[in-house]
């Protein structure tokens, strides 16, 4: 019975530590991570298991080291334009010597025979879903749709990146977080 109790205690602790670890890790990235503003390319409203969310899409094609194939682990770095917007820049096989990169995998390698160049589609975990309250989803959809189509420079997704991990900070509309913008 004593052995069973100890086993239960360890098992219970592991179960509780997993979400706690994820929370602390996410808090750390959101606090200390490098901030990038990404242009939103489009979105789809969805209604699945974890509640309503907006599925966000970005330009996920990057140049990269040669000989990368589907499923390869890569380190993606960013480049900023004059307006302060970031883009996924390059997929490296080797880990960069700074902490402003995102670890991901190659979804689809592409090679253009006419130019002799290739690029890669990367997997964007943790950046493609914006979970939202069920009562606000409809209005948020409309705002995101209007701004993406008519004023793309006034809407962006802020992400935080630290040591390979990325977290979505928020969607900003005219520099105001989406949920606050909805209350205006």
């Amino acid at each position, binding site marked *: 019975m004593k052995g069973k109790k100890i086993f239960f205690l360890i098992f219970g602790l592991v179960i509780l530590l*997993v*979400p706690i670890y994820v929370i602390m890790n996410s808090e750390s990235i*959101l606090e200390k991570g490098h901030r990038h503003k990404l242009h939103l390319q489009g979105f789809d409203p969805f209604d699945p298991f974890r*509640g309503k969310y907006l599925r966000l899409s970005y330009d996920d094609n990057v140049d990269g080291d040669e000989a990368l194939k589907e*499923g390869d682990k890569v380190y993606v770095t960013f480049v900023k334009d004059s307006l302060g917007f970031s883009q996924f820049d390059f997929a490296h096989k080797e880990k960069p010597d700074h902490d402003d990169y995102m670890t991901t995998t190659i979804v689809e390698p592409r090679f253009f025979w006419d130019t002799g160049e290739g690029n890669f589609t990367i997997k964007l975990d*943790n950046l493609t879903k914006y*979970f939202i309250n069920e009562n606000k989803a409809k209005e948020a959809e409309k705002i995101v749709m209007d701004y993406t189509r008519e004023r793309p420079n006034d809407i962006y997704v802020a992400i935080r990146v630290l040591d390979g991990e990325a977290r*979505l900070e928020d969607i900003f509309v005219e520099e105001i977080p989406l949920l606050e913008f909805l209350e205006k």
Partner: protein
Amino acid sequence: MNTNVLLNHLDSLELKGILPKVANQKIQEFLDYSTKSTGRLFLIMSGMLGAIFASAGIFALISHNWDDFPKHFKGALSIVPSLVALYFYYVALFKHSKSVVWSEAASLFLMLMIGASIALVAQTYQMNGDFRNFIKLWLVLTIPLFYLSRASGIALFYIPLSCVFLEPSINWSWFVPSSFDVNSSNYLFWLFFIPVLIHFYLVLNKTSRKQGFRAIFLGYLISITLPVAIFLTVQTGYIWWSIGIMMTFYLFGKHFFGENISHLGRPFQTWVLWALYIVPIYFTHDFFFDMIFKYEGIRDFDVWTAKQFFHYFTGIILMITMTIIGLLQKRKGAELNRYVLFIPFLFVFLYFIYCLNEYLHFNMRWLGFFVLNFYILGFAINAMIHGNKSKSILYMFYGLFLAANLLAVRYFDMDISFWFKGILFIGVGCLFFLINYLSTDEFEN
């Protein structure tokens, strides 16, 4: 008949002197046991359904997305489902350790709440993450539940979730049969499946050939999942693997489930009977015969990878091993069906005939079809005779439909003159009438 009515009836038979007192007592004890065990099953199922629906409700609450609360509060809230479920699990483990109902319901609730906690953190921190990683983490945290409380009901969710790692990428085609590429992560499925197999082995009653509800339930889950998983993992040798699995199921089922009364209580044998009902009949047709054996074509040997060779020969070794075990057991006097033991020999013979035709252009398929048709007919008649002897009406029906199925197919595809076909099928019809006539005395009264 209602059990109470039956008990009163038995008492009245005893009073009238028709039924001896000892016999009445024994029957009443048996009925009481069987009512209690069915009642226990009802309690377990209602407990598990309670856990499932309560969990569904909690998932729905999470889905609302309570964004009025600050992020930190929501983060802290995410461990509450696991915490509450852990409390119930603790109660089940230490306060109701003898109660199967508590153990099953609390384990299932904890399993689902682990998923709910991870989902809530993901929602709070906008992490859609990789679905497969989420499942991996969830399954790893679920494994101890199989052993800590010996819970089996969780397998109902655990096994389908682990099948995510088997999902093949299908190359659909309109003009030729579609093909598929096996999932490169399928080893994860096997890693997650092994704990279920160990749990199943621990649940089995090793001293008897009769198993309870728990083993039957796990038996069905395993006997459905295993063939599908093997089919989606191996790249060659499908026929040898299929026969190997079938022989394994048959011998395993006979060994551990042989004395279970109902056919539903013998999951492994039931699947073998279904497979024998459906599969061999396909091989009696030219098109399917060629198409299925083509996948095993030795002409492709030179382009096969080491992995493909390994799969092919492992399938053959499994089939041979199981056949030898079956034959040895039969020699020792085990009650095994000759027709099932004959299956590997039959398919090796059919494959030999296919090879003669494919590689040496020596067409002997007529002989293969001839043998196979007689095999199926013999198997069907044997099922009817055996069913009659053991008073198993269901088995008799099986034999009857198997024969009828074979003959119906032959009626449409047999390329012989109509007058001969007519006489042949009148004879077959008369044979069924004869069976009916011979069985009349036994069943009509």
